[in-house]
């Protein structure tokens, strides 16, 4: 083959389906005899239901049933493992957070169910909710994703006390809701005790395991089908309560039921990125070499579940710092369980550390880029292992050059253009890379067509395209001859499609499988045997990897700030990322751009606002919970530093869906400081914070 397929900027194979509106999402699924269910959410955040009056709802036209804690099927709603999620399945009268489900109205149409839901009257005995991060009862988790929640190397307290220059600051990031445009939704259908679910999910196999536990049935009796997923960003990685409620409703009425979570309900039992408060100290020599960093994190969690926003991981693993300590503590609030959102921990943690380093650079009178270069880690400072690959230096150099960083002058509030204050800022990006076991089935038909099956899901990352490219290049056939099947627990098992791990996991399995297929064909004289070939393999990482695996990057930002109105516009963004092997330059760029857009959004717009007196969300819609519009976003310039990383995994890839959000909010905050002289340490950077 003349042109290599891997890396080629091919159009998405599912493109025609998506642009014609023919791609099916769960929300587009209808099955025969299907009823519609709508959740009635609580209007208090803490207390109990005293009485629930559903008589009017039951009498409304089209309503088939109302499910409350009085008549709901008895199921297991408690979690089975510490990292599982407790569900809220109408088993009890207790209310623990705003918009907890208190009833489900099942009717012949969406309209009838919606009207019926408006007629259900719950009377509550409310209690004052616990909503204050700094005063709520807190505890220290035992671990964060299997690693220690506390970590120390050297003697950071002593090193800080002796450091010639130090910055001690506190940074805050707010609660953020993912708000994919396809809200969570489920269709449930029972047949002779077997359950079929269509679900908008990042993990068909996770849903199958959890729903089987809820009903106490063998997972083999559950089939989970995940059509195209209309956005997720972490929010669909956990099976939330409505999935089980839909299946319970289908059982109660003995008919298939569809439940679509409304936009306002997305702020209820669906997880969110937790708010954090991060105390950071950085100490350095006069020349900028860091002697110590400490990073102490508070991140909210719910009353009975644990989620840690692992902010400390970013500062633990990035720079060559001899003395370091991090800690995480979790205040328990009357909120639903927080969850991972695009680059959990490292997006929020990078805002704190990369802001603090910018502050240090002004204390030192040192260029912020030079400060980073002076603390460049040649080995993973946490484990001491060599990196499987690291081209962060090239990221700095190439992005700085493209951006023309050398034009920056250190004075703040010193540059104006057309009446606007102009500022430049930068920050480092970093995201740990990992993978999990994944299985694939490969079939080659006699006519040469190859079908690869894996029960992973498609949420816009380009899986069907890039996996066809990977397999076709190994098999030396046109990529159009490779078809990728996904989204069904009847296919081989795939891990959670999150944490930027899918290409490293599923892609690696495909490399191994395609290589085996090529060898089998070679042994058969290059011919497909009669009846074709079909086999399944599992590929998994080593127990102990000899290398540290991490993706890096650097973001350079130019902002304009209106001195009278405090409005911030990002007018230029240059990001360079070391990304392992790029499988498709077109879809990869889209993922990097997407991460930058999320970074801009985190910096300037997103915040779930609670009335902390009663625990209720005040901006539960897309008019008041701000996400960026087209006009808010510049055209980011993305530089992909290609690297061949044979150590990281058989596909030679690093995850690319998350790294570009890390550092972005700090780079923008740093540019805003340069433009205005105002240091914003609490996101988002809203106009009133700049009007001094």
């Amino acid at each position, binding site marked *: 083959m003349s042109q290599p397929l891997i890396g080629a900027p091919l*159009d*998405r194979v*599912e*493109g*025609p389906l*998506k*642009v*014609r*509106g023919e*791609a099916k*999402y769960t*929300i587009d699924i*209808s099955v025969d005899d299907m009823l519609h269910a709508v959740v009635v959410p609580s209007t208090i955040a803490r207390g109990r239901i005293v009485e629930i009056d559903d008589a009017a709802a039951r009498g*409304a*036209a*089209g309503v088939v049933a109302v499910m409350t804690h009085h008549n709901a099927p008895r199921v297991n709603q408690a979690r089975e493992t510490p990292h599982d999620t407790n569900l809220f399945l109408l088993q009890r009268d207790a209310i623990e957070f705003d918009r907890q489900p208190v009833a489900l109205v099942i009717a012949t*149409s*969406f*309209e009838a169910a919606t*009207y019926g839901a408006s*007629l259900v009257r719950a009377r509550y005995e409310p209690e004052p909710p616990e909503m204050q991060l700094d005063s709520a009862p807190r505890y220290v988790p035992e671990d964060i994703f299997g690693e220690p929640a506390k970590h120390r190397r050297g003697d950071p307290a002593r090193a800080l006390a002796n450091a010639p220059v130090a910055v001690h600051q506190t940074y805050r990031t707010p609660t953020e809701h*993912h708000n*994919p*445009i*396809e*809200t969570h939704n489920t269709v449930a259908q029972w047949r002779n005790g077997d359950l079929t679910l269509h679900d908008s999910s990042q993990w068909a196999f996770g849903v199958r395991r959890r729903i089987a536990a809820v009903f106490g049935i063998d997972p083999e009796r559950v089939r989970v089908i995940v059509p*195209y*997923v*209309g*956005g*997720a*960003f972490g929010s669909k990685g956990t099976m939330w309560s409505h999935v089980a409620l839909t299946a319970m409703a289908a059982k109660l009425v003995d008919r298939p039921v569809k439940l*679509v979570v*409304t*936009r306002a309900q997305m702020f209820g039992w669906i997880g969110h990125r937790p708010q954090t408060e991060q105390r950071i100290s950085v100490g350095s020599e006069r020349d900028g070499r860091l002697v110590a960093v400490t990073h102490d994190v508070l991140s909210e969690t719910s009353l009975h579940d644990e989620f840690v926003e692992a902010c400390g991981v970013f500062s633990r693993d990035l720079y060559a710092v001899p003395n370091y300590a991090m800690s995480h503590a979790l205040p328990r609030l009357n909120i639903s369980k927080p969850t991972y959102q695009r680059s959990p921990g490292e997006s929020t943690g990078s805002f704190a550390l990369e802001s603090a380093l910018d502050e240090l650079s002004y204390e030192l009178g040192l260029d912020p880029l030079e400060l980073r270069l002076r603390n460049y880690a040649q080995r993973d400072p946490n484990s001491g292992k060599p990196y499987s690959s690291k081209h962060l230096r090239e990221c700095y150099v190439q992005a700085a050059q493209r951006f023309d960083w050398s034009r920056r002058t250190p004075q703040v509030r010193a540059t104006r253009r057309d009446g606007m204050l102009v500022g430049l800022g930068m920050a480092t990006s970093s995201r740990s890379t990992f993978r999990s076991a994944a299985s694939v089935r490969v079939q080659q038909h006699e006519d040469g067509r190859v079908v690869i099956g894996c029960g992973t899901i498609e*949420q*816009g*990352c380009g899986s069907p395209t890039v996996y066809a490219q990977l397999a076709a290049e190994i098999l030396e056939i046109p990529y159009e001859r490779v078809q990728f099947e996904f989204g069904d627990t009847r296919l081989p098992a795939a891990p959670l499609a999150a944490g930027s791990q899918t290409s490293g996991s599923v892609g690696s399995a495909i490399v191994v499988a395609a290589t085996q297929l090529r060898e089998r064909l070679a042994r058969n004289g290059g011919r497909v045997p009669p009846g074709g070939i079909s086999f399944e393999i599992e590929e998994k990482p080593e127990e102990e990897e000899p290398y540290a695996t991490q993706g890096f990057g650097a973001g350079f930002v130019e902002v304009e700030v209106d001195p009278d109105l405090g409005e911030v516009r990002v007018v230029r963004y240059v990001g360079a990322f070391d990304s392992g092997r790029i499988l498709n330059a*077109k*879809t990869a*760029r*889209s*993922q990097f*751009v*997407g*991460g*930058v*857009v*999320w970074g801009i959004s985190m910096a300037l717009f997103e915040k779930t606002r609670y009335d902390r007196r009663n625990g209720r969300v005040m901006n539960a*819609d*897309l008019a008041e919970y701000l*996400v*960026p*519009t*087209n*006009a808010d*976003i*510049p*055209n*980011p310039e993305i530089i992909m530093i290609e690297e061949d990383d044979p150590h990281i995994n058989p596909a030679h890839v690093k995850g690319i869906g998350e790294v570009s959000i890390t550092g972005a909010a700090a780079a923008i905050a740093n540019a805003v400081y340069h433009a205005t002289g105002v240091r914003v340490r609490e996101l988002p950077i809203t106009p009133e914070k700049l009007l001094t």
Partner: protein
Amino acid sequence: MLTAPNTTETTIVLNVNGAEHPVAVEPRVTLLDALRDRLGLTGTKKGCDHGQCGACTVMVNGRRIDSCLTLAMMHEGDRIVTIEGIAAEGALHPVQAAFIKHDGFQCGYCTPGQIVSAVALLAEGVAAERGAVQKAMSGNLCRCGCYPHIVDAILEVRGER
């Protein structure tokens, strides 16, 4: 106490994508839900049901509107065009082709609304510069962050006209 809604179904005729579709609807049924749940035209998406995201954008008599903010019964006699009617069967509208070429989508969920909005925008005759297109497309939210590529696609089609 709310007054009970009128739940009597009336059969109306909707002109969608050039064809007449008789459909029985209650007065409370939105155009969006009539298209999706009654006519099976699921290309038009529901994202917020409040006119805030633009996923449900369709053209009514050549104007782009949020189909979640209007009732089906109000549109007898109107010309309604959805994503399914943007191009001839089997063909791609130039905007659809440009969205593929420029990767103007990732998950694809907001895409039908973006494309219908873009097709209507080109007919509206918006200015050729990037910023003007961005403002004119700001009623359609994309959460995957494809905005720059959406603008690239629209500018290319506009340039060819």
